[in-house]
């Protein structure tokens, strides 16, 4: 309903390349006349300068730092300048099996987080769509609680839930019949081994992020016109077929967008791991962002060059995903 209004708005022939009715129409706007003396550049300048200095420039510096020997020694005003080191950080990283294992774990954990979040979120979104309004609202409000909980609080709660000795999860597992889950759960420490620690980590992340997917899918489902399903039913299509042939294609842009956002959010997980691992001693449980922080601020001496090299690897991974994201945004006309 809402989009018909937008589509039928007669757009003035816009001088620019874009035909976005929102922006094109504004050409003869009075606001423009008013602000003629302040060109648009003056309006974006504060935000742009701010972003460029605080966030954009550091991305370039990250690359520069990664190519130089740069430790805390070089940072002190009296210290030497960082020196070019012939890609030493990258060579060391690529020949270090430890790094490859961290990279592999990061990708695996990310894939699992994103996969489980997407499947669970989509199922819950469909569920919310099928439930009566009042119950759907109740469940949605409950989900908001999980979504809104700050990462720090959530991590601490899950650490407490899975705590060896007194945690609720171990208690429940212990009280279940032994033939089902085995015995000796009470003192089981989830936070020592990568497999168990990452399981808890994935649980926290999924818990916090599935509501976003579910609510987005619900909004998407509501936007599909009923007539499509009716027509499909006339043609004899069953529920499963109309799901594959109507629901999925209609929601595809939404799915790609959520997928990209989830991948990017889950690749960078830091706070939750910081609390769950609770130390930098066990290198087996590092993920990329954790490794960056460890190199930059926990190693002795802090090695900014190495930390930046790892950051470059992570940024490249993210930018590949971002390129896909940009394509979606351009296709949707968000950049016009």
């Amino acid at each position, binding site marked *: 309903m809402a989009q018909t209004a937008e589509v039928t708005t007669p757009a003035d022939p*816009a*001088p620019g390349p874009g035909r976005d009715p*929102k*922006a094109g129409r504004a050409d003869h*706007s009075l606001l*423009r006349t008013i*602000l003629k003396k302040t*060109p*648009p550049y003056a*309006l974006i300048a*504060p*935000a742009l300068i*701010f972003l460029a200095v*605080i*966030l954009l420039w*550091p991305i370039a*510096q990250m690359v520069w730092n990664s190519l130089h020997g740069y430790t805390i020694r070089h940072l002190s005003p009296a210290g030497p300048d960082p020196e070019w080191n012939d890609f030493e950080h990258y060579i060391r990283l690529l020949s270090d099996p430890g790094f490859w294992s961290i990279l592999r774990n990061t990708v695996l954990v990310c894939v699992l987080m994103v996969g489980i979040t997407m499947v669970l979120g989509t199922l819950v979104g469909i569920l919310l769509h099928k*439930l*009566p309004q009042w119950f*759907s609202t109740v469940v949605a409000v*409950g989900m*908001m*609680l*999980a979504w*809104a*909980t700050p990462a*720090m*609080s959530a991590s*601490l*709660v899950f650490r*407490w839930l899975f705590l060896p000795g007194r945690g609720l999860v171990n208690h429940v597992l212990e009280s279940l019949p032994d033939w089902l889950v085995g015995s000796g759960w009470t003192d089981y420490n989830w936070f020592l081994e990568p497999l168990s620690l990452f399981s808890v980590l994935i649980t926290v992340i999924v818990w916090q992020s599935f*509501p*976003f997917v579910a609510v987005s899918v619900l909004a998407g489902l509501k936007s599909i016109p*009923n007539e499509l*399903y009716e027509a*499909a*039913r006339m043609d004899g299509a*069953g*529920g499963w077929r109309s*799901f594959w042939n109507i629901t999925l294609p209609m929601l595809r842009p*939404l799915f790609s*967008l959520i997928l990209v*956002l989830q991948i990017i959010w889950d*690749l960078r997980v830091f*706070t939750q791991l910081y609390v769950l691992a*609770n130390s930098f001693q066990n290198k087996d449980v590092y993920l*990329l*962002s954790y490794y*960056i*922080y460890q190199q930059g601020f926990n190693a002795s001496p802090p090695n900014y060059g190495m930390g*930046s090299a790892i950051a470059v690897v*992570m940024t490249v991974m993210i*930018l590949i995903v*971002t390129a896909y*994201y*940009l394509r979606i*945004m351009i296709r*949707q006309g*968000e*950049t016009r």
Partner: protein
Amino acid sequence: MSAVTAPTKGTPAHRRSRARGPLLSKRLRMAGLYLAGAAVFLFSVFPVYWMVATAFKPVSEIFSGTPSLLPGTPTLEHFDRVINGELIPGVSFWRFFANSLTVTLASVLMGAVLSLLAAIAVARFRFRLRTAFIMVLLVIQMVPMEAMIISIFINFRQLQDATGVQMLGNLTGILIVYTAVSLPITIMMLRGFVAAVPKELEEAAAIDGAGNWTIFWRILMPLVAPGLVAASIFAFITAWNEFIVALTFLGRSTDYYTLPLTLSYYFGRYGTEWGSIMAASTLLTIPVMIFFLFVQRRMVSGLTMGAVKG
């Protein structure tokens, strides 16, 4: 059940079961849906409930070998200890609360001004660098702070050494970074609101003799205000929850710790005081919960932008 038959809620599944399934199977199906809904609700709410319940339990119950779902004898001792005691020796809870609030509110205000100006430019003008600007916003939004943190830290440290203005170890540095971090998404959110203001309104006001400022304050602002509120709350939540920047920038300056950092510090020091840890976590969570209820709808459309329409 009448809600199910309302036209807006009609889904293929409903209609199908209504059309051909016998009543019993329809009921079973509905029961299954309710059950699944209840399970999702429990999964979402339980950890939050457990946090609050633990915060109200006396130490003896927390350490008991058989955890009970409800606090047997609810107590405020943990909240009392968090608020009136000292989470970090020598610094009171209110100091941390004030730090968090100061840095959050100041960054939200600065962000609101900067993003409103930029949003007006993007929504109302076509200029050569417009598309490039939007692309920059989208890319910056994606590059994680975890990757940039070392470079930003080095910059601020060098600036501090060069000028003598303290950037690290107090709130200045994190305030600046928090402002910048939220800008891309708040600009994109506000842009839609500015674009939705009909130019006819402005023209009519001008014909009636309204000046620039009058038009800005009386026409544009009231219409853009809901967007500004939503974007601001979004920025508020981001800044309130932020951890890694505070962790790197504040170091040992406990006087300036924000709440998440305080919690992490306290957990590292007194990792067995689960009652206090959960009480402090609850206090950290409450403001976010309140604001979240206001912007939930906008969060979805803000993040997925054009993908969901209608």
